[in-house]
């Protein structure tokens, strides 16, 4: 039986678990091997993840599972995404959706973001979690590589109110060489799907000599969909197979973003300490309407938010923001009320 979650369409049976190693087939159905088992459950500033245009200042409960359907040579979470999930058995958090929502409350979080590995590998658990989160008025977001079937992309867009798509390059060659898949086409299709259905930001890790020549193409593609899609260009810290590669030049990459900045309204360049390109600038008058501070891998944070009613205070231009500014420090109403 073929899996319909991602574009690998793996042939599965009771002992064949596909590329991601997270599903099997039994009784004519695709099932999760590790339902409601989580690799992590933590707390982060939403800017750190990064989502820059979603409930600024909010406190996110970040979660992840195991496995991935990509084979990125530079994967920064290789120890979790590339390992056989079975090796984590006995070390998985076993939290049902009700417990997850309680935990989000106990940790005083405003929303839940799936950000460790690829959500497509854990769809049934996430769909179930979504039902509980919806009832608790707790929005959910995720990071995805976008290599999903049309149906799964629609499902992701239903489950998650905000999605950050990793668009890692703009050619089949790059995706073949560095990611291990045949074609970029499904990813481009799904960026459009997400952009129609929910709030979308896009993230592109740049590796000099590998995908830096595709920066303009990516910018053009995104601008044609919607010039207000926030684009995060990341200075990649090579890990996994590419650990030891030289660090990309910050000034060199920044020069390459000139064209992107003429086409897209919100271009950010970060993942290094003290980046000068993490503020939101009003596309109309140039005022710095949201100020942030970046600690690189230590995370980003909101420094100042000037957009009353999500508009530039200087010229009134609407700034694309899902939700409104929230206070990181929430009133501590105690843990006991969330006991079972």
């Amino acid at each position, binding site marked *: 039986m073929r899996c319909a979650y991602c574009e690998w369409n793996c042939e599965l049976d009771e002992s064949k678990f596909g590329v991601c190693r997270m599903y099997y087939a039994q009784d004519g159905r695709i099932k999760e091997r590790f339902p409601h088992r989580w690799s992590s459950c*933590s707390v982060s500033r939403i800017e750190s993840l990064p989502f820059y245009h979603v409930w600024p200042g909010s406190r996110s409960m970040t979660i992840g599972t195991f496995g991935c359907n990509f084979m990125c040579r530079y994967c920064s979470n290789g*120890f979790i995404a590339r390992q056989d999930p079975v090796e984590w058995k006995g070390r998985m958090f076993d*939290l049902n959706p009700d417990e997850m929502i309680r935990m989000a409350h106990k940790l005083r979080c405003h929303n839940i973001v799936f950000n460790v590995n690829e959500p497509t590998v854990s769809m049934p658990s996430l769909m179930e979690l979504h039902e509980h989160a919806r009832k608790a008025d707790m929005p959910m977001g995720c990071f995805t590589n976008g290599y999903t079937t049309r149906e799964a992309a629609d499902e992701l867009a239903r489950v998650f109110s905000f999605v950050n798509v990793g668009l890692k390059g703009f050619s089949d060659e790059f995706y073949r060489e560095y990611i291990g898949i045949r074609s970029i086409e499904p990813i481009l299709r799904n960026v459009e799907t997400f952009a129609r259905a929910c709030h979308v930001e896009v993230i592109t890790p740049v590796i000099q000599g590998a995908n830096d020549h595709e920066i303009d193409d990516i910018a053009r593609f995104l601008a044609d969909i919607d010039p207000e899609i926030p684009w995060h260009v990341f200075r990649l810290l090579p890990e996994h197979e590419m650990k030891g590669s030289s*660090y990309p030049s910050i000034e060199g990459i920044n020069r390459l973003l000139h064209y992107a900045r003429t086409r897209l309204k919100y271009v950010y360049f970060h993942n290094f*300490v*003290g980046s000068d390109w993490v503020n939101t600038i009003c596309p109309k008058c140039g005022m710095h309407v949201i100020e942030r501070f970046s600690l690189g*891998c*230590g995370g980003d944070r909101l420094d100042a938010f000037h957009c009353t009613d999500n508009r530039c205070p200087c010229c009134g231009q609407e700034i694309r923001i899902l939700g409104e500014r929230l206070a990181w420090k929430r009133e501590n109403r105690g843990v006991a009320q969330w*006991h*079972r």
Partner: protein
Amino acid sequence: MAQVIVDARQWQNMFDLRTGRKLEIENPTNRMVRDVLHRHPYPGDTSYRSNRWVSEVALDLIRIYQPRLVCLSYAQQYFTSRFSYLSPLEYEDLLDQVFREIEDFIEISGYTPVIVGTGDMTELVSDIDLSRTDGLCLSSAWSARYAGLSEPSERDLIQVRSHPGIERVVSREEWVDLFAGIPYERDRTPDYLLVARPGRAFRTVVTPIRRAVRIPGESSAVPVVTDLGTVDDIIGLKTLIEQNLEATDIALIVVEGVGLRNFPRPNQACSNGRGWFYYEPGETQYLTITTGSHQVFAYPAGFLDLYDDEEYPFSGFLREVPGHTLGGEFDGRSIAVGNRSMYTHMVYGADICVECFARNLYNQGSMAVIHREKEGWR
């Protein structure tokens, strides 16, 4: 105002340590420090060149700044052994390399050493998963032995008190009484401190994902090597160093992940806590060494206000520059260098501190903090 210089490789920026605001200040001291960072890109926490980086940065700073007090942390073996499978022979070899590195530093620099091991590492036998408690159970990022439990239910207390991996469940009052007289903040301190048996590590929400192979082991005493006198408790090290600084230049060398069991040189055993409580390698142990008093509540296990602080963005969970540190109180010139990441500049308080800028083993470069500049080096 303390200045921070971050070197993200070919990209340097200066900030205010407290606010994180960018600074545009140019003076001979920060120019000198910028040059030192530029000359010594950080190779990474688990790189075989990581400890060598500590020595090389220190020797460079010594050549230029000529400090009388040098504080060093060597941590490569701690990170490597924590996250990599090593055979006993490989582990022994790793420790041997550290001590050769330290001995080379001592020989070249000529400083009188005071060497402290932070405690042995032991193999992780099993986790104690407390993610499903009704109350909130949290273990600090690098801790294995301690977790905090807040607002537990009766069921939680029954669970933790009967858990075979848990050595002791200590109420806040009992914990505070053990360190009577040491200031603590009730809001930051959990209702109960949970203490794991050696070889067990707490796993709670917010625990980092990366799987440990070794964790800090039983370390009620830690090894100290010094010719300056006898000392029976780590809180005595500061006074010992201060008393001898008038006569000799001293290097306090903290060696991470090495304790009495594995320390490859003759040493004296020094108490590393009080009663049932002993320090794991980390901020509180460092601060206890450098301030000469117990600092168990400076960063309490399982503390509650996760990431709440707006100030000192470069300094982890510490909320102000600690007072009474060795470097902070010394009148002469001092430096600190370490590859144990973000708290070197806070715990030593030296005039100029250089540390790696890495988080969870992700290497983003290096960082220096200039707390103050003393006359006469130029």
